[in-house]
């Protein structure tokens, strides 16, 4: 059945290059999470604002992010914005696409987390003389982050997996991009991509483990 010789040595020689790519992957994922979290918070506040325009904007963002493929969102950033004369590099388009996706999913998680925190907590804060913003920032937000922590971790793993989509818009410095370039030169597809798979798996596991450690340190109550 197998009339094929595996060339693992040749592939393993490229390991340092691939690990460099893995660092880029991690960097994009972390950046996209930071941006995504900030926008998710903003969208959540928009939803709570009571303004129809702001909450409509937030809902539109969230529904598009959740009901279209991540790859579509990246294409939009890379090709679609071209209609406005905006030409994003593969890196920026990939980052923008993933951050957009993150923000939509995280905002939806935040909404669920907010529901889990009773109104009486805000009331207790307000009765101590806190302003609405203070009560949100000091009382509601920290508790919301705890409830949303697991979904945030899951989204981070998703962000890592999504970075691989960059290769479809010409990204060539992240793990998938580097692997694809090596593959194009050597045609050792299986070997290179198997090693990439192992590295992705390891990153995902390390991130999950790190998140558990952080949760254990942060949420002592």
């Amino acid at each position: 059945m197998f009339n094929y010789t595996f060339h693992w040595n040749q592939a393993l020689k490229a390991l340092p290059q691939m690990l460099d790519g893995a660092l880029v992957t991690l960097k994009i994922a972390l950046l996209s999470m930071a941006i995504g979290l900030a926008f998710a918070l903003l969208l959540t506040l928009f939803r709570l604002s009571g303004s129809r325009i702001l909450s409509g904007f937030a809902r539109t963002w969230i529904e598009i992010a959740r009901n279209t493929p991540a790859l579509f969102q990246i294409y939009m950033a890379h090709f679609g914005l071209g209609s406005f004369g905006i030409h994003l590099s593969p890196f920026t388009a990939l980052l923008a696409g993933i951050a957009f996706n993150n923000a939509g999913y995280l905002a939806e998680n935040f909404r669920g987390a907010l529901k889990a925190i009773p109104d009486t907590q805000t009331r207790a804060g307000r009765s101590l003389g806190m302003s609405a913003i203070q009560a949100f920032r000091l009382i509601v937000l920290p508790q919301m982050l705890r409830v949303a922590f697991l979904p945030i971790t899951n989204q981070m793993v998703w962000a890592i997996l999504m970075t691989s989509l960059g290769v479809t818009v010409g990204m060539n410095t992240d793990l998938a991009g580097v692997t694809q370039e090596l593959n194009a030169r050597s045609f050792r597809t299986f070997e290179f991509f198997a090693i990439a798979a192992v590295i992705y798996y390891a990153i995902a596991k390390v991130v999950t483990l790190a998140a558990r450690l952080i949760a254990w340190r942060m949420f002592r109550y």
Partner: protein
Amino acid sequence: MFDTAMTANDLLFLLKGAGMTLAVTGVSVAAGTLMGVIFGVIRVQIGPWWAAPLTFLLDIFRSVPLLIQLVLGNAFQSIAKLGWAPFTTSCVILSLYTAAYCTEIVRGAIDSVPPTTRRAARSLGMTWAQDMRFIVAPLATRIALPSWIGLTLGVMKDSSLVLWLGLIELLRASQVLVTRLQEPLFILSICGLIYFLLSFPIARLGGYLEKRWSPND
């Protein structure tokens, strides 16, 4: 508003792409769900220790990017001289991918059936199979359905990645048109709208079921 060079034929081309998206999704979700139910029951039945290898194997499909899985699957079928068409390869990989997530859903749903209820069923003289069929299955289905709908929609969106293997599904069809007509925003917007129309109503149904069947609300 839009002065477009797009013709009715082009729109038909997009809709054919959407048909391909639905075909890949349909086959993968059907096969993946079947495997997921079997794996899920096995995992609950033999306990976490004996199921560890299966758990590990399925976890790989959830921790490695789908794109990498597709490339690996395609390379493997070529090495093994299976002679699979891209459609077959895509469906096989997506089915396994679906099965990995579905197993988790099924396991969680079965675990959510209170042991006391199951003991009551067995104490009435029901066999394991009867207990599974008449007690566990109806209760677990309710728990699992909203998540399963979410999974189906997820697979539909993720199926866009099969374009990497050369399948002309919805997103790839849009890309072809973009290259030819040079109207990226307009064509991608139509593509997004089609995805949205396929996904949003079902997502809403899932949200509704979740609310209605949630025992705490």
